[in-house]
């Protein structure tokens, strides 16, 4: 049984249909990359999976937790799904460790004694064991994004969503963040990510999903998608990005 | 027994209320126009490093902004005769509003002036425009456009503040209310109705000012 199962997801902004019937299954430990043109609905799809966008129709199930268009209580879903944003969205008034500890403390009511250890463990995992008490504005973009990843991991999500996590970074900082994501993948984390880093996607992903005009246009293992695109749109897309 | 509201006791006082509202509007128009004019002049004075003028304007702004309007009004109406300056009720009320709004609008417009990018002023300077020409043609309009919402709010605040002018017997809306309730002994009903009138006036004034802002600033876009 798939860990994440999307069935017939529809979503419009006003009269603009952005997701037009998405079906997607992701199994435990799988790494899936969403690719496609700007405006094809990648971010929107990702954001529906943890309820940041309300869906108009369809069913989302994550680890047995089922959500449809009528549901308004999304807390159970969000407990299973972590998310990392393009713009980091760290809490600027909290230190790196406090950013990591906040949700475990508030949501999971973890005991004080365990919290600090958890923060240390998570920040060490992303290579920032020496930046515990720094505030976000004292960190580089790459470091901030790694704190954001640690913050999500601290909730022990079953699946982690990553929306262009390196797009806001200076080129020289991209590698350190990708290295962390790669390590997560190697450790068996289930990942769904939107990315424009095609080489990275090719190396790390089990499945590549090409979105076009709100639908999944083509998908498959990266070698197949890259070397033998079945549709003209995908060929154009791959050609366009060189 | 529960209190019986009686709004009918207000009938027959319509003319009085209308007259009062008329005077409130007159005070607001005078205060608004002259106050904003002073504000423009004040912002101009403060934008230049003139030795005496700039600090004097700064002091004026701070004194007015840090004392109650009611006290300013009493000072002008009761205090100035000691210097041989005797003002009528309407004159004193209008003057107090002008002085008050003048200070606030100086500060508001100054903030707008400061937001104009330095490069535009330098461009005008390099075209050999005088400081006054630069202020008039390059700085003022975009500055006013920028702070128009804040300035409009301040005009509404001053209009509402004019309510205390009843205390020097200027016959504006609140004065009319005081008069009526002294006759019909229905204080709550009278003030309730007059409060609603003020609310309507402030909504109307806000709407008019935003239309005025559009007329003044939007049309210029295409010349």
């Amino acid at each position, binding site marked *: 049984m798939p860990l994440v199962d999307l069935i017939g997801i529809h979503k419009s902004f006003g009269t603009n249909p952005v997701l037009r019937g998405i079906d997607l299954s992701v199994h435990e430990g799988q790494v899936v990359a969403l690719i496609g043109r700007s405006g094809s609905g990648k971010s929107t799809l990702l954001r529906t999976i943890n309820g940041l966008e309300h869906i108009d129709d369809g069913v989302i199930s994550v680890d047995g937790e089922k959500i449809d268009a009528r549901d308004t209580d999304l*807390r159970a879903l969000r407990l299973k799904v972590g998310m990392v944003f393009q713009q980091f969205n760290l809490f600027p008034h909290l230190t790196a460790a406090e950013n990591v500890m906040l949700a475990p403390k508030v949501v999971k009511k973890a005991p004080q004694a365990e919290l600090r250890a958890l923060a240390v463990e998570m920040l060490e995992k992303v290579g920032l064991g020496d930046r515990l008490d720094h505030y976000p504005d004292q960190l580089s973009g790459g470091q901030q994004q790694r704190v954001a990843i640690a913050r999500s991991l601290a909730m022990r999500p079953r699946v982690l969503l990553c929306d262009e996590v390196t797009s806001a970074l200076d080129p020289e900082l991209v590698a350190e963040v990708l290295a962390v994501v790669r390590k997560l993948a190697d450790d068996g984390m289930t990942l769904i990510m939107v990315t424009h880093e095609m080489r990275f996607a090719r190396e790390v992903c089990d499945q590549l999903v090409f979105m076009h005009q709100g639908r999944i246009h083509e998908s498959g293992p990266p070698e197949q998608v890259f070397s033998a695109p079945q549709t003209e749109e995908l060929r154009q897309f791959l050609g366009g990005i060189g | 027994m529960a209190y019986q509201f009686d709004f009918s006791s207000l009938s027959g006082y319509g003319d009085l209320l209308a007259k009062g509202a008329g005077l409130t509007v007159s005070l607001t128009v005078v205060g608004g126009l002259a106050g904003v004019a002073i504000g423009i002049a004040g912002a101009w004075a403060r934008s230049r490093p003139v030795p005496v003028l700039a600090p004097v304007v700064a002091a004026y702004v701070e004194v007015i*902004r840090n004392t*109650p309007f009611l006290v300013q009004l009493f000072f002008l109406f009761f205090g100035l005769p000691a210097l041989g300056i005797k003002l009528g009720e309407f004159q004193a009320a209008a003057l107090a509003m002008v002085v008050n709004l003048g200070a606030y609008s100086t500060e508001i417009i100054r903030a707008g002036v400061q937001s104009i990018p330095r490069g535009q002023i330098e461009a005008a300077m390099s075209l050999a425009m005088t400081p006054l020409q630069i202020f008039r043609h390059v700085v003022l309009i975009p500055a006013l456009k920028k702070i128009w919402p804040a300035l409009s709010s301040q005009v509404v605040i001053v209009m509402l503040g004019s309510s205390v002018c009843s205390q020097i017997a200027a016959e504006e809306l609140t004065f009319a209310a005081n008069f009526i309730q002294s006759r019909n002994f229905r204080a709550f009903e009278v*003030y309730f109705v007059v409060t609603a009138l003020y609310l309507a006036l402030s909504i109307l004034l806000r709407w008019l000012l935003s239309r005025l802002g559009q007329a003044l600033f939007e049309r210029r876009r295409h010349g």
Partner: protein
Amino acid sequence: MVEFAFSDIVWNLLLALRWTALLSVVAFIGGGAVGLLVLLARLSSRRWLRRLTRGYIEVFQGTPLLMQLFLTFFGLSLVGLDVPAWLAAGLALTLFTSAFLAEIWRGCVEAVPRGQWEASSSLALTYLEQMRWVILPQALRLAVAPTIGFSVQVVKGTAVTSIIGFVELTKAGTMITNATFQPFLVYGLVALFYFLLCFPLSLCAKSLERKFHAAR
């Protein structure tokens, strides 16, 4: 007629100044507490509650403080009580302050970037938890300067309570003027005392605002 020395005038005004200060503090603290509730209602997900509080704020911002005072004063006496002026003054100013502070604070809450809401909801925080731990701490920083700035309006607003007979600084000024026939001097002093209360608050608000802008 009683002879008033200059020092008597100053002393009597200072005595009255205590009431101005006390009323200001009460209105500011009470208004802050009520304002916080109004703010939460204003930001609520329930539409009728948002509308209701928007109306509340509109009414207090769109009518004269003097009318609010009269309505409180005469409204309370309708319920049958013989209302002391200080009670009506304190209540009216508290409500007035709550409406303005709620609106100021709403602006600060809305200035917190959307990403902060998204990040905290994706961490499964509830609305109240988001407010408590993520949004309000940031909004609070933004709110300090304008809140102190508004305290100046509260202090000045207390002058209006003289009209319903609360003996604070302005009322004392009027009473002393009636006894001494020296309005120029007395109202000048009254203005000076208000200035001494308000100007430090204004300066503080301004410097905090500058500091905040520099920090960004």
